[in-house]
């Protein structure tokens, strides 16, 4: 047919290939705010920070090139670096596993078709939501005060005269660990969601085969939950490395008593905004990035051996 043969030819004459500009322009226009932010507030500053870390800079005089001196001093001659790193690592190693254990235990309890689930979930989540505010840090300082509520309870229940937790360097860091563990709510919610994703037919099949509850937990629940455990562990660890507000408020910005709560971020803050040693503080920031990166890389490498992906 003549009409049928002509039709495609007509289409090709109407159709005009869009120019490269009109194909790409909308995408870049929508991306514009992000691009400005990325170059101006992320990439640019990151490069500047790398440069500053090789200088002495106090905001007043021009940066003074010192090469790797800052890094050498951090590695060899900075007691505060070592003590703050120890405090931070201790905090990470203590608080993260405890927090995740509580989160998982409570999630398992809540995941049993329990009445009032929304209420319990809300109650357990609330402290994590309020967690990073100054009010909570202030509250914690009062709870663990010499005559605070913890010691009152210890006295009434066990007849123990508790120490002054906050001002005793042997205990002050533990109070911050307890504060972190108290905020197990958001990993708990992620665990709950993860538990929901496990297909119920697996459980049905296992119980038909006569598997015990313990066996079902270790052979089905735990392996299928490993991706979620992994995610929570990585996120919580990075967050713990970055903790700042509670240590700052509880020690009134000093990291005391005798540097027992001098978190790495607090030390960095003091160097940068207390003494205006911007170059040195930039080097400290890069060391933190490297430590977090090493940790994250290590987690991902280890994940091959224990994280179970079913795809």
């Amino acid at each position: 047919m003549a009409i049928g043969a002509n039709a495609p030819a007509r289409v090709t004459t109407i159709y005009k290939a869009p120019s490269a500009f009109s194909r790409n322009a909308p995408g870049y226009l929508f991306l514009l705010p992000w691009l400005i932010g990325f170059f101006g507030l992320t990439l640019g500053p990151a490069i500047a920070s790398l440069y500053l870390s090789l200088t002495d800079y106090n905001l007043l005089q021009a940066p003074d090139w010192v090469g790797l001196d800052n890094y050498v001093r951090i590695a060899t001659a900075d007691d505060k670096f070592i003590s703050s790193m120890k405090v931070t690592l201790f905090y990470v190693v203590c608080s993260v596993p405890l927090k995740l254990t509580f989160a998982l235990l409570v999630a398992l309890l809540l995941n049993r078709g329990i009445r009032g689930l929304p209420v319990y979930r809300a109650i357990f989540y609330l402290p994590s939501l309020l967690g990073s505010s100054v009010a909570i840090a202030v509250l914690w300082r009062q709870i663990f005060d010499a005559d605070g509520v913890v010691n009152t309870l210890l006295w009434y229940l066990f007849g123990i005269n508790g120490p002054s937790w906050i001002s005793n360097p042997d205990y002050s860091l533990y109070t911050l660990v307890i504060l972190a563990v108290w905020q197990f709510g958001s990993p708990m919610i992620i665990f709950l969601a993860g538990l929901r994703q496990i297909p119920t037919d697996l459980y049905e099949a296992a119980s038909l085969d006569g598997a015990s509850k313990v066996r079902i937990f270790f052979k089905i629940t735990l392996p299928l939950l490993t991706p979620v455990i992994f995610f929570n562990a990585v996120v919580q660890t990075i967050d713990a490395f970055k903790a700042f507000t509670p240590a700052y408020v509880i020690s009134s910005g000093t990291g005391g008593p005798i540097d027992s709560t001098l978190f790495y971020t607090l030390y960095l803050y003091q160097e940068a905004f207390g003494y205006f040693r911007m170059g040195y503080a930039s080097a400290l920031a890069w060391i933190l990035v490297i430590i977090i990166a090493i940790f994250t890389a290590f987690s991902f490498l280890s994940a091959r051996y224990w994280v179970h992906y079913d795809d």
Partner: protein
Amino acid sequence: MTDAKLTHFPEDLSPPRERPWFFSILIHVALIGASILMLYPLLWMLSGSVKDQNEIFGTASLIPSHFDFSSFPRGWFGGQVNFGSFVWNSVVIAVLSVIGNVISCSLAAYAFARLNFWGKSFWFALMLGTLMLPYHVTLIPQYILFLKLGWVKTMLPLVVPKFLAVDAFFIFLMVQFFRGIPRELDEAAMMDGCSPWRIYWRIMLPLSLPVLATAAIFSFIWTWDDFFGPLIYLSDINTYTVQLGLRSFVDSTGSSDWSSLFAMSSLSLIPVFLIFLFFQRLLIDGIATAGLKR
């Protein structure tokens, strides 16, 4: 994992498995005990705000022997600057941050989820990379930049970055949501000659209200609770946010007026608490979704 929908929890689970009644009771007892432990510090603070000075310490009881609300006006008006000013500053910063984040992140997310352009996957990978970069690296040069611009001691360094989509987490959340909206919708609109802008504004945004609300709520709470940013950039007490005001209150009252300190602390938590009450579902879904995405 399907990346489209926020996972909704059914309120009542599929038929509870058979179990002895005493076992149920045991679980509830454990959970109620844990709940009391979780809430006790918060209730203690609240009750401390209406207790007599001497009564706050030395007793673990939550019920005051008599209620004394004078701590609230004492705390509110007691400082060098009254607390209303801190609240106002916090509200302005938080509201502007919410607007900035929602607009700028949704624009970027729309580009990443729906438009095709040269270099898209490269930019997308960079955006994901910024998710992992600790803020400490950019902190000092950003400070210097804002200092050179003359923005330090104003709220600009706290607000302007939010209009430039620096919170990659929200972009990521929105991209995941946008990808779940059927493609046919915007393809049909494009056939009808709709511009990308119209598609974004008339189709994507209205269909994405849940994820936009989630981002808005988290954005508000995080800005409200933020202490570090204001600590660095705000040094004039008239520009202090609630968090800074509260801390200066701790320092200035020293160890004297506990009940008004508790009163102001409790007040500072109210906005977050109210948002939590009203938008619990969105918050919990948001957290859950973020954790299940890989």
